[in-house]
């Protein structure tokens, strides 16, 4: 599998990244080299192998559904780039 500049543009859009023309070219080359390296995994027959997503055996972790205090608003907004009336403020979402 080889990826083109167009693929890189598509993936960048999914990842919400804006790439310069130079970055697009560089990432296309580097990602192709890395993906080519990944090809070696196909040497392994994994037909009957179960995937490992988590290394230690554990069941669902549940807790009592009780009301707990949450962070005070002024604290939560402490790092906000922009805020208004106790809410995070962003530019227009819709035209």
């Amino acid at each position, binding site marked *: *599998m080889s*990826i083109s500049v167009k*693929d*890189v543009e598509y*993936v*960048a859009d*999914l*990842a*919400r*990244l*804006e*790439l310069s023309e130079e*970055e697009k070219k560089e*990432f296309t080359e*580097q*990602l192709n*080299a*890395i*993906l080519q*390296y*990944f090809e*070696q*995994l*196909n*040497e*392994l027959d*994994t037909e009957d*192998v*179960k*995937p*490992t*997503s*988590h*290394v*230690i055996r*554990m069941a669902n*972790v549940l*807790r009592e559904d009780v009301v707990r205090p949450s*962070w005070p608003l002024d*604290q*939560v907004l*402490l*790092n*906000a*780039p*922009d805020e208004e009336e106790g809410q*995070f403020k*962003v*530019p*227009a*979402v819709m*035209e």
Partner: protein
Amino acid sequence: MSLFDLRIQEIHNRLAHKELAVSDLVEYSLERIRSVDGKIRAFLTVDEEGARAAARTLDNQMRDGDNERGLLFGLPAGIKDNIVTQGLRTTCASKFLANYRPIYNATVMDRLNRSQSVTIGKLNMDEFAMGGSNENSGFHPTHNPWNTNHVPGGSSGGSAAAVAAGEVYFALGSDTGGSIRQPAAYCGIVGLKPTYGLVSRFGLVAFASSLDQIGPLTKNVEDAAYVLQAIAGHDPQDSTSAKVDIPDYISALTEDLQGLRIGIPKEYFGEGIDPQVKEAVLAALRELERLGAVCEEVSLPHTKYALAAYYLIASSEASSNLARFDGVRYGVRAEDADNLLDVYRKSRSAGFGPEVKRRIMLGTYALSSGYYDAYYLKAQKVRTLIKQDFDHIFERYDVIAGPTVPTPAFRIGEQVGDPLTMYLNDILTIPVNLAGIPAISVPCGLVNGLPVGLQIIGKAFDETTVLRTAYAFEQATEHHKRRPQL
């Protein structure tokens, strides 16, 4: 001899006998930072005021006759900058978080505070822990104290360099693919990656959630046991935190290795290993045999596939984890954005460095529609094979030993621009993360003036055997006593 070369017990004795105050330890640390950190650049933030205030509190406690002392009482600590510290700037060495002041503490910080260590400041790293050299820091590279033209390793490079340079008594780092052990090896100190789930990840800024683990970087194995004792244990705030009994790591440190069975994977001495590194590690294995251990060659046949599986899994998880950096709730928001989508795109593009973007791209591609089975799922299946390799060996052996890294620290700038070569530094550390098991790196010699690390890998939750093996080796050798000339 440096004040920080004193054992913890000795420091605590001197404090008890009023021959030393916590303020002396803190001032010693701050003075050392003033005199050497211009060359090393391990720190991103030094909290002089906070450290002095904490020292005063502890000294007052002593003066008031309160003899209840925490395990790490008074010890100056440096914290990797991806561990959140309440009110103290936490950047992950990313421009995106240049001004971020967390409103809460990571669980490990609460535990350190309970153990009464003193936080001196926050340490440099590769941005969001992605990298093995600290050259990917969004602010500045850190230099290896043994030779400042060389990298300290990474991503916990600031943590390793600060300990090696004697700027702090101990440091915390995080290890996703070798990020504690590799810099520890490069800087000639001890670095321990605990079993996945032993130490809470609550408040560790997530890179690859199924691999990340916090651990200590220290001058010797005893200190590593102390720090692990302080930070290990179940935390309800981290749903992947294991409910296991925490043994006494400190009293488990004995010098007896009689009958210990050590597997030596032949794959760890293969192509690409520096001959002098190999020689130093083989000498270390002979020392372990002399101490009563039985060393036998074993095979971990899937080792060569670990790197590819790791980069797929880690990058995929990272691309998902780093979606939270959107410029809305915290972080640096781009100023020229017209709409919300623009806020995301412009803030992320300006805030992230090249390696972070590369991994987000790689992970997003691997998880994107049509490629999931070929890449992410395949990698998770290979992960199973790698874990089984270890399971088989541990049926017959107590620990596995070999080099931590195939080569000594490279020169700053030498591998920039070639991500694949850079990734090869991690080839002997990442299988351990994929299997979720514990491993330590201990100094075992110098090659051309640069340190070499011996890696000891253990069974899940068997940190005591890992620590004991490392301790016996350390006590029988002088490597850990060497200090860089600064």
